[in-house]
C-alpha cells in the first residue's frame, strides 16, 4: 500500500515538474530536406557550407509545386501593380518555359498571388512568402512581393518563381552565375542548366539517377571518404562511406588513390 502511494506521489511530482518545465517557444519549422540534395558536411570540411551550395541547386521537399505546372494571379487589390511590373512577371515566367509551365490565371484563381510593397528600410528586393502546403509538401498558396523601393526585372521574377517551383536560394559566391543566387548582383538572366536540374528533381521529371562516387573528405589517418552522387543532375545523397583500398592503394568504389584529395565537390577554397 505504502509502495503504491509512494509510486503515485513520485509520478505526480514528476508530472508537475515536467508541466512547469515546458518551453514557451514553439518551433514551427523542421528540416524536411531529405533524399537527393546536398548536405552540410561542415564537421569534415574546413570551410563554409550551406546545404545545396556544393551542387549548384538546392531544393526543399517540403515546399514545392505539384508537377510541372504552376499558376499565379496578380493581386487585384494592388493599385501599384503597373503594366511594367506585370511584364516582369510574364517575362520571368516565360524564362522557365520547357522546364515548368507557369500560367497567369486572369480570373484570380492562381495558386500564387503576385503584388508589390514599398519598403525602403530593408535589404529585401523581392520575396517569396506567405505560403502554405499540403501534407505532400505541395504548395497550396503562395505570394511573391516586389519591393517598389528597388528596381525590379524579369530575372528577379524568374528567380522568385523558382522558389514557387521548389528551389532555395544560393548564397556562396561560386553560385553567382546561377539564377537562384540570392543577390541581385548575379550574372544569370534566366535558369541555368543547374537551376533546371534542380527544378527537374523537385518536380519529379528527373528521378532515375545515374549514380557515381566522388571525393568527400579525408580522415585523420589519411584515408578518404567518398559520397554517392548523380552524374546527371549532380545531386548528392547523404551516403558518405570510407574508401576501401586495393593492393595498389586505389579505392575500389570511387577510384581515388589513397592520400589524394581532389576536392571535386567544388569547395570554397578561401
Amino acid at each position, binding site marked *: 500500500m505504502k509502495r503504491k502511494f509512494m509510486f503515485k506521489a513520485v509520478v505526480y511530482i514528476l508530472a508537475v515538474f515536467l508541466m512547469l518545465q515546458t518551453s514557451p517557444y514553439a518551433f514551427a519549422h523542421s528540416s524536411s530536406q531529405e533524399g537527393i540534395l546536398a548536405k552540410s558536411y561542415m564537421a569534415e570540411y574546413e570551410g563554409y557550407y550551406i546545404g545545396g551550395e556544393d551542387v549548384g541547386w538546392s531544393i526543399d521537399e517540403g515546399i514545392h509545386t505539384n508537377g510541372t505546372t504552376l499558376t499565379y494571379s496578380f493581386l487585384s487589390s494592388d493599385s501599384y501593380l503597373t503594366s511594367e511590373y506585370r511584364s516582369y512577371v510574364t517575362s520571368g515566367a516565360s524564362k522557365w518555359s520547357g522546364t515548368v509551365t507557369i500560367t497567369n490565371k486572369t480570373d484570380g484563381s492562381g495558386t500564387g498571388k503576385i503584388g508589390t510593397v514599398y519598403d525602403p528600410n530593408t535589404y529585401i528586393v523581392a520575396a517569396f512568402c506567405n505560403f*502554405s502546403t499540403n501534407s505532400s509538401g505541395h504548395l497550396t498558396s503562395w505570394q511573391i512581393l516586389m519591393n517598389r523601393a528597388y528596381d525590379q526585372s524579369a530575372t528577379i521574377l524568374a528567380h522568385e518563381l523558382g522558389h514557387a517551383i521548389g528551389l532555395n536560394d544560393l548564397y556562396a559566391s561560386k553560385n553567382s552565375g546561377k539564377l537562384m543566387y540570392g543577390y541581385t548582383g548575379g550574372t544569370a538572366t534566366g535558369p541555368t542548366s543547374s537551376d533546371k536540374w534542380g527544378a527537374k528533381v523537385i518536380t519529379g521529371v528527373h528521378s532515375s539517377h545515374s549514380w557515381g562516387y566522388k571525393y568527400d573528405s579525408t580522415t585523420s589517418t589519411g584515408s578518404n571518404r567518398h559520397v554517392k552522387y548523380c552524374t546527371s543532375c549532380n545531386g548528392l545523397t547523404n551516403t558518405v562511406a570510407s574508401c576501401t583500398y586495393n593492393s595498389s592503394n586505389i579505392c575500389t568504389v570511387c577510384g581515388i588513390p589513397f592520400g589524394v584529395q581532389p576536392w571535386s565537390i567544388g569547395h570554397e577554397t578561401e
Partner: protein
Amino acid sequence: MKKILCMIFATVFLLLVSGCVISTNESESVVLPPCRIGTSGIQATFGDKYTFESALAEADVVARIEVGNWIAEDTNLYKTYYEARVLQCFKGEIPENFTLLQEGCSVGTMKNYPLFISGNELLVFLNEATEIEYESPYWIIGSFTTLLDVSYDESGARYYVDRYGILGESINIPSNYVHEENVSSEVLSVVVASDPIVSEMQYSYPYIFSEADIVTLLENK
C-alpha cells in the same frame, strides 16, 4: 510515513510553484516577440552582396548593440521592431537607445534567421530608417548576411562570431579562432547558452574573430 511523504510532496510542489511565479515575474519585465519563427517562411532576394568593407562604407552606423524588448510588428511588410541599446559605437552617431528593425515577423521569417529576443548581443551595420513611427529607427543593412554574434570566453574576452559565414569570408584577418578548439568551444557554448533557439538552427559558425582583430579592422578603415 504517509504524512512525511505528503509533507515532502507539498514542499516540492510549493517550491516548484513559487519558482514558476518568480519566472513569470521576471518574464513580465521582458517583452518577447510572439514567436521566434514565423508561421510561414520567406525566401528573399537581396540587393548586392556585402563584404565587410562595403558594409562598413555604406552603413551610417556600425555598433555593438544589445537587443531589448519587442515593440511591435508589421505583418504586411514582414517587419519587427525592438528596443535596442548601443554598447559600443565604431562608426557614425546614434542615440544610446534606439529602435531596431528586423526583417521577419510572426507571419513569416527567413530560414535560420529567427526573431531576436531581449539580451541578444550583436555587431550590426545600420542605416537610419525612414517613415517609421518609432523613435530613432535603424535597419540592418545586409540583413542576416552582415550580422556577427558577440560572445565571450571564460576569461571574459570578447569575440565576434559569424553564424552564416557570409560576411566572414570577406574579412581579411589571419586569425580565425574557429580553428582553436579551446577558444571556439568556450565561445560557441556561450552563444548557444545565451539564446534557447540557437541550438535549433543549422548554423555552421565558420568564423570567430577576436575583438582586437575586429576593432583594428574597423578603426583602420
